[in-house]
């Protein structure tokens, strides 16, 4: 078991004026771990995700990532080119709405190939080959490689977004409500796919969601947020089955039984 955390978050705080986005969040994520962040709307989970992924600049704190070349580096102190390079290579970000993460005017193959071309791939045949391979892995038929995502269903768009993100073999994936807005049968298939990919590629992932069923199936660990603060963290099944904090108990007992 490696002792170097892939991601070490220390004291991350983000304020919107007097309002607290997230406050003093710290945790370590190790290679191969999947961590869920749950909480109601406005609890700060998306703010935290965006701070970690470099989309928002936190007011305080460190986000130390174990880079492939230089070892652990505080990504908040990195220059913008370095951080953007990281977000094209070692990191991936899956948006809740596939439209935010895809180029809707570009074919499926072009969408998947973009990250390869961004890191210097210049052989059309190879790029296309990788794109087709990845479409297969996310269960999109090869014949759709030249179709635009506008012609895809919501579930297919989400799977395409995942393929586009994973094609460069990232080590850390940020996911913002990846199954939100999809109907339940599509959700199930997507969950299974994400789980297999995480396992087969040895990915680490941070998944923000308000769906406790999703984290139970996907996440090894769980962080519960309320009003910008982490109120409880631990093993997913432990937090859900033996919640210690009042808010977590309320959250868990509020789930509708089917």
């Amino acid at each position, binding site marked *: 078991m490696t002792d170097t955390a892939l991601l070490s978050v220390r004291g991350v705080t983000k304020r919107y004026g007097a309002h607290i986005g997230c406050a003093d969040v710290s945790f370590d994520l190790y290679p191969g771990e999947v961590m869920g962040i749950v909480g109601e709307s406005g609890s700060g989970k998306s703010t935290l995700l965006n701070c970690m992924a470099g989309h928002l600049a936190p007011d305080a704190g460190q986000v130390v990532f174990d880079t492939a070349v230089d070892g652990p580096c505080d990504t908040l102190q990195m220059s913008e080119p370095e951080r953007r390079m990281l977000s094209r290579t070692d990191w991936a970000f899956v948006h809740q709405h596939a439209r935010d993460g895809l180029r809707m005017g570009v074919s499926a193959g072009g969408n998947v190939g973009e990250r390869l071309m961004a890191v210097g791939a210049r052989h059309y045949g190879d790029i296309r080959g990788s794109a087709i391979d990845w479409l297969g892995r996310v269960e999109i038929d090869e014949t759709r490689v030249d179709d635009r995502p506008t012609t895809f269903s919501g579930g297919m768009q989400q799977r395409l977004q995942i393929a586009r993100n994973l094609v460069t073999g990232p080590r850390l994936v940020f996911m913002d409500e990846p199954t939100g807005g999809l109907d339940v049968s599509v959700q199930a298939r997507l969950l299974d796919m994400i789980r297999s990919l995480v396992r087969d590629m040895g990915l680490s992932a941070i998944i923000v969601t308000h769906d406790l069923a999703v984290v139970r*199936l996907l996440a*090894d660990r769980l962080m519960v947020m309320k009003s910008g603060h982490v109120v409880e963290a631990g093993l997913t099944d432990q937090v859900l089955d033996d919640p210690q904090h009042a808010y977590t*108990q309320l959250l868990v007992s509020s789930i509708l039984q089917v």
Partner: protein
Amino acid sequence: MFDLKDVSKTFTLHNQGAAVIEVLSGANMTVTAGECVALTGASGSGKSTLMRMLYGNYRAQGGVVSVAGVDLVQAAPREIIRLRREVLGYVSQFLRVVPRVPTLDVVAEPLLALGVPAAHARDQAATLLARLNIPKTLWDLSPTTFSGGEQQRVNIARGFIHPFPALLLDEPTASLDATNRNVVLELIADAKARGTAIIGIFHDEAARDQVCDRQIDVTGFSPGCAA
């Protein structure tokens, strides 16, 4: 393999007037490799709670819950995750899986998580499912639609596919017919012979007597009875 020292457990119900329920206190027990121990006691005496604490599912308020040298009370989540992946198996009464995943993959998953090649893991899963008399026609279907007994056997297959050195069994023979019950008892006996330390809850007394070396009455761990 399992070593409990002075373990206590309370539930605090914050949303019900912060009621504190004491379930266990001063629990001590040791189970060594190759041993099979049954937890006994009346319903509500804390058997399931203790099982869940042994799996790291419930958090103890005090004491040491050591499994293969890892103290579940103090361990970081990732240590418990690794322990569950490599050392500690658990056959629960309830099957919880991603919907629409074929039974064969559900059973193979513990091996896949250990990095066993998919084809080999599925072969193992098939062997075990066949031994537990799950009809081959069901292997490609999701177990969510199965009957209680079938789900139970899928759960058992998941628990036995990897030779875990430590195993927790929660009512493994409940809702099984005689044939399958015997298969499960064989599996338990095989595991014991391999040196697996097993802790189980068996309401099926005949089964308990057949596979268990000794019994621990958890009533003794109830707060009122604590020494």
